């Protein structure tokens, strides 16, 4: 058995050990590099398992040889502290490096190097072995706008821009108007949004052609559903949060019942309920558009979660605020609207951002009740007879899309959390 102490460096012979060790590490990584990029394996004369483990063993030996605490060489010290403080860590580090080398090249190869994006038909893709991004390019508009007529896409774009503009009005409210911020976001803004969506996207008046909701789809539908979901479940959630904190028993227990009910059932059953049961609950001659039913169900569902988030904020507010407001002679509603809620909502902005994020991630579910947002469009595109076999590209595209949106939102919510933490 080799005496492992031979491999331990000391301050005197460190230079030699450093050279030999670095060389060994390099050989190990280079070996994996060759195998992965060029499929060269010059160690075939070794028995199977030894062949496979060779780079790992060499790398471990090399790392052991350069592991000297406080060697004086800055780079080596940094490496030793971070990834080489014991054999276990060294091994894990090597494995991660090797896995990266083994996985990335084939993936890059397929996704970029051998992929195509030119052309308009399947023929352009059949020739290559790589990913077929032409498929995405051709279907892109569908993924974004669903079956909405191409000529009218400007209507959707305009509607969104206008909505975002109205959302920022809150930042510019000064002076006396600031008191009405809650009122604006809770009541006025939802109404404005509804009007805009109704007239611009749905159409039917003012010379704009009517487009039925079944044709709405893609990412724009995702946004519409998430957006309406959030702005309407917001006031409802506020009422429920206040109700749960109320001292009046009936109101309190009805609120608790509502919240616990909607938080205890999966969203899919709620959606089923909305498409199958809602018609039963309404007079038979009243027809409610499927999209509106689905959004209503989502609003009722998410309101329960928003209520819990807001309740957290209400609880975190120091009692002194309540006392001060009461001592000034404010009634219950005045106190809530002008003193308590504005502060509580500020506290829970990150929580609400998280809920919104969860809502966006939940919207793909509406595809099971027949509304084709992005994932629904993916399924539709995948089974189109002209484009069979490109499911993987579709899912990768959708994953990257959602990931980018959700990552951006979660980073923004973290930024908000930090900002409001330091402000207090």
């Amino acid at each position, binding site marked *: 058995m080799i005496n492992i102490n031979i491999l331990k460096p000391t301050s005197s012979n460190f230079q030699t050990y450093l050279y030999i060790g670095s060389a060994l590490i390099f050989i190990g990584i280079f070996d994996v590099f060759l195998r992965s990029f060029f499929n060269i394996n010059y160690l075939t004369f070794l028995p199977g398992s030894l062949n496979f483990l060779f780079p790992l063993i060499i790398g471990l030996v090399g790392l052991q040889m350069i592991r000297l605490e406080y060697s004086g060489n800055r780079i080596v010290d940094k490496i030793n502290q971070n990834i080489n403080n014991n054999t276990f860590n060294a091994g894990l580090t090597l494995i991660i490096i090797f896995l990266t080398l083994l996985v990335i090249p084939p993936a890059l190869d397929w996704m970029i190097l051998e992929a195509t994006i030119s052309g308009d038909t399947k023929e352009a893709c059949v020739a290559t072995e790589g990913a077929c991004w032409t498929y995405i390019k051709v279907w892109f508009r569908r993924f974004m706008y669903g079956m909405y007529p191409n000529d009218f896409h400007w209507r959707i774009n305009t509607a969104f821009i206008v909505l975002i503009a109205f959302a920022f009005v809150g930042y510019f409210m000064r002076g006396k108007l600031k008191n009405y911020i809650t009122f604006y976001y809770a009541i006025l803004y939802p109404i404005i949004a509804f009007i805009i969506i109704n007239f611009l996207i749905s159409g039917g008046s003012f010379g704009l052609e009517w487009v039925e909701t079944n044709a709405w789809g893609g990412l724009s539908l995702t946004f519409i559903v998430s957006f309406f979901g959030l702005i309407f479940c917001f006031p409802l959630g506020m009422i429920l949060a206040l109700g749960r904190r109320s001292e009046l028993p009936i109101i309190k227990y009805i609120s608790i019942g509502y919240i616990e009910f909607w938080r205890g059932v*999966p969203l899919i059953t709620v959606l089923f309920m909305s498409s199958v049961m809602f018609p039963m*609950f309404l007079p038979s001659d009243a027809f409610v558009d499927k999209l509106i039913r689905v959004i209503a169900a989502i609003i009722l569902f998410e309101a329960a979660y928003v209520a819990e988030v807001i309740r957290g904020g209400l609880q975190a507010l120091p009692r002194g605020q309540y006392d001060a407001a009461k001592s000034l002679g404010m009634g219950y509603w005045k106190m809530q609207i002008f003193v308590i809620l504005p502060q509580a909502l500020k506290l829970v902005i990150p929580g609400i951002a998280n809920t919104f994020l969860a809502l966006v991630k939940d919207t793909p579910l509406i595809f099971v009740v027949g509304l084709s947002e992005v*994932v629904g469009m993916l399924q539709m595109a995948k089974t189109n007879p002209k484009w069979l076999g490109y499911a993987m590209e579709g899912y990768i595209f959708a994953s990257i899309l959602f990931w980018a949106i959700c990552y951006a939102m979660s980073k923004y919510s973290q930024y908000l959390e930090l900002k409001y933490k330091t402000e207090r």
Partner: protein
Amino acid sequence: MNHKIKSIIPQLLTLLFVVAVIGFFTINAQLNMEERGIDFGYGFLNQESSFDVQFSLIEYDGSHSYAKAYLVGLLNTILVSVLGIIFCTIIGVIIGIARLSPNYLIRNTAAWYVEFFRNVPLLLQIFFWYYAALRALPLPENTEPLFGVTYLTVKGYYIPRLIWENFDILIYSILAAIISIVFIRNYARKLQEEKGQQLPVLLISVGLLLVFPAITFVTGMVQLEVALPVLKQLSKTSFIYAEGLSIPPELLALVLALSLYTATFVAECVRAGIQGISKGQKEAAASVGLTPNQILKLVIMPQALRIIIPPTTNQYLNLTKNSSLAAAIAYPDLVLVFAGTALMQTGRAIEIVSITMLTYLTLSLSISVLMNWYNKKIAIKEK
């Protein structure tokens, strides 16, 4: 007097509002049902279901009742949830600890794992595994065995089936082991209290759990046969592996997606728990001479678990609710079997959807109640 009226009026109004809404729905429902000739009742549960289910843990076919179908769906949901919970816990704990590693590479790899799998919608992840990744697996006839006796194919994961003789005796032996472990632990505790000596309780427990069942094997009371999967030709081009146990790709995709997704949240809970323990605790424990293992067991874990367990249980609940997404890939869970197929066949929307929602509600509420009881019991007392 005035105050009493002030508090009664809002409550009355709210109550009236709720009653009015419920009443409105009920009346409409009754009218609609009369119009369409549908009656209301749960008697249909005893009728023959006349549909088969692809995957079931118990004996079931079309001649069994709808109630049995409900049970099949429920068991499948529980199966997926339990498997998902086990795997997401293992992965979550590893990633959570890795997030705090001093090793730069490990720490960042774990961080990217969390950021990636958390921000892609679960449904998309399920679809990816089911329609893209698992579809790329080879056909049964072209598969190389994994670990020698299992076959990961596009038609499912085929593993050996265990056939037990006298399985109940094995259960008794395990029970006996557990009972004796309880006795040993009590004895060890008394011994420590009185004489200060410590017994290696963990080692002894593990030993007992292994030895007792082993005895049943060695003496021949319990016998185990292993049925290996064998390639069988169904038709000219269609092969499967028979004799063994086949795990359908739907179940695989679902468990994979659920575990990887929920593990990100569990990892964050674990990380919060470990970080929530101030460094001073470790130092204080070290300064009185406790070994690192003792510090972990007596000081760190008790505090960390109090922080970790409540939100993690919440995640388990979310996983169970998310398992309902099985409907999207035709895994026969409760929602697909009952609120999907059964509902389509009988048209009894209100009864079926209400039963389904009630089932999930019961599950959620009982776990909530359990969690609240547990929290109160172990709460660290403060002023």
